[in-house]
């Protein structure tokens, strides 16, 4: 593989690669780009993701989206149509075998699910169902539907689902590698996602706007806002370069209200700053807020409270979209009813907060200042490492620990950065690892953690971090000693 660079794939490169991609599983044989454009062009307005986002953004509304996917088409269709009345845009969560391109195992999962009469897969194996199967699904729905997964190499998945009328595609070369894979080199997943973005870019050039959503929450566990912001911005830049024009950047709830509001506000501002500076002006940017991605309380009433806190802060921060959790979260894949309950609770909270005063405070401003200083420091170093090329830069940044995602499974990630909550529950850096943050920012983190350590009469240690990870499911935000 030649060295990665952030440059639009040439038509020749793309076409040659495409021929190979479509051969990796028999269902690839039925993909045809012109037919795909025709399918997309025939979608009614109420089934276009980009339109739903643009309207919500213009009207200041917040869209709700659940997560859902089962093995068989008819069951998945029934599931989505059962969720549809309670949400604004639909998901299709892809199963874990497909995410790792293990289509044979996915097929076995389909067959065994058919035999068992219940889904044994944790998602919808779209590649195995092929363009026709996926089209049957899209035809049976009345709202826009997005592919949500966790696939380092999603090229075939993108080809098939976009040809079938899915109008939004989640993921990115960093955000679907670092938290979702173990051995995949970062330059390889970024290169594969350049392909996905280029495919979306080609639709854009053909007059079809497909929404792209880098995966915001990463590992979903004590991720400092600047870490996920840098990934979102870099993936945004990579996507824009390939011709993507409709971007939704994400953030996963951290738990502290001031920090969460600051994170979502700064995300939009920072992204616009870097995109405009890179010379892009004709893009549409929206945001997505993920309700708590960490461990949930087992009790459904308590889980609903966690969901409600996320709904409140997402609306206070005016996110364009919320990814909604369910009261069954602690137990894995939820039932239809539990998924509906999560949506109904979220809707009620969003509605009650919708009209209320904009929330502002000195605490929020401080958090914004800190996040912006952190993002600028890391972005500067990424661009320096890449000699101006953000693709090259991010690969080297991860290799050297300049970028470092906590609790990530990927070997491509150093795993030295260690977060911990401060005395008010905001996420700070217990160990910044090799991330080149300014001294005053590091001092801020240190002071905040020292304040908590004094309050708890114990030294900061990895025990504190372990306690924090387990806190929400034990009904607390900060993991205090008993």
């Amino acid at each position, binding site marked *: 593989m030649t060295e990665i660079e952030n440059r639009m794939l040439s038509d020749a490169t793309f076409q040659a690669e495409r021929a190979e991609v479509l051969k990796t599983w028999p269902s690839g044989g039925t993909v045809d780009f012109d037919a795909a454009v025709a399918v997309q062009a025939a979608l009614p307005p109420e089934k276009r993701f980009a339109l739903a986002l643009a309207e919500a953004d213009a009207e200041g509304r917040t869209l709700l989206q659940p997560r859902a996917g*089962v093995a068989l088409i008819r069951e998945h269709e029934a599931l989505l149509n059962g969720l549809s009345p309670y949400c604004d845009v639909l998901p299709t969560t892809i*199963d*874990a*075998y497909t*995410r*790792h391109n*293990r289509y044979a*195992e996915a097929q*076995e*999962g389909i067959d*065994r699910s058919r035999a068992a009469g*219940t*889904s*044994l*897969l*944790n998602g919808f194996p779209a590649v195995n169902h092929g363009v026709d199967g996926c089209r049957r699904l899209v035809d049976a729905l009345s709202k826009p539907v997005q592919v949500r997964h*966790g696939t380092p190499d999603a090229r075939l998945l993108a080809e098939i689902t976009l040809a079938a009328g899915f109008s939004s595609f989640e993921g990115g070369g960093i955000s679907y590698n670092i*938290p*979702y*894979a*173990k051995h995949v080199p970062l330059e390889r997943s970024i290169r594969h996602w350049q392909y996905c973005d280029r495919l979306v870019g080609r639709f854009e050039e053909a007059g079809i706007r497909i929404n792209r959503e880098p995966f915001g929450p990463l*590992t*979903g*566990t004590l991720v400092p806002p600047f870490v996920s912001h840098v990934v979102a911005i870099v993936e945004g830049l990579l996507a824009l370069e390939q011709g993507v024009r409709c971007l939704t950047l994400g953030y996963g709830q951290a738990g502290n209200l001031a920090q969460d509001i600051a994170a979502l506000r700064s995300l939009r501002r920072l992204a616009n700053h870097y995109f405009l500076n890179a010379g892009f002006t004709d893009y549409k940017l929206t945001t997505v807020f993920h309700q708590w991605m*960490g*461990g949930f309380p*087992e009790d459904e009433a308590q889980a609903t409270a966690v969901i409600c806190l996320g709904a409140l802060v997402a609306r206070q921060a005016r996110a364009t979209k919320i990814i909604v959790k369910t009261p*069954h979260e*602690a*137990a*894995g*894949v*939820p*039932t239809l009813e*539990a998924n509906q309950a999560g949506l109904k609770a979220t809707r009620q909270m969003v509605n009650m907060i919708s009209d209320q005063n904009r929330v502002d405070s000195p605490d929020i401003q401080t958090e914004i200042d800190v996040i912006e200083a952190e993002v600028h420091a890391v972005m500067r170093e990424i661009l320096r490492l890449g000699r101006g090329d953000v693709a090259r830069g991010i690969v080297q940044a991860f290799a050297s620990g300049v970028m470092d995602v906590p*609790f*990530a*499974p990927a070997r491509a990630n150093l795993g030295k950065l260690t977060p911990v909550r401060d005395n008010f529950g905001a996420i700070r850096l217990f160990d910044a690892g090799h991330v080149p943050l300014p001294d005053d920012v590091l001092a801020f983190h240190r002071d905040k953690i020292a304040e908590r350590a004094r309050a708890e009469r114990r030294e900061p240690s*990895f*025990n504190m971090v*372990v306690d924090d*990870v*387990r806190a929400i*499911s034990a009904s607390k935000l900060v993991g205090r000693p008993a």
Partner: protein
Amino acid sequence: MDEAARSYKIVLGVIGADCHAVGNRILTAVLTRGGIEVVNLGVMVSQEEFIEAAIAEDAGAILVSSIYGHGELDCQNFRARCEERGLGDIVLYVGGNLVIGKQDFATVEARFREMGFDRVFPPSVDLEQVIGLLRADIDARRPMALGHNSGRFVVEARA
């Protein structure tokens, strides 16, 4: 041989195509703090990798995690594979969100016990309790010479 000097070594990992790394890190931290020697294989571990590590490390137990719902598919024939490789007696634990959806835990437990796992845990299990069970179960399966329970009883009775 007294209890403090005994070693409790286990192989830990997340099975299949599952890349949930957080619980794996927390488990490692808490078990280590509890005096268990943990060989952590991380996420996306195959049955073969578990078994080979258990042999290479001479581990007393294998702890299989599965969070993503494919546990039933991924754990098929695990005990049989262990037996084929001469690990018929190894302590085999499994825990997490083992199936798709919220199912009655007793049913899930029975299904995995049937598959040959010695103990089955929900994600909410108290980890201190797991440490206690691990020590007891590993002790119970130790060869006599290394201080099997019945042997230990004799030693204590003499003291």
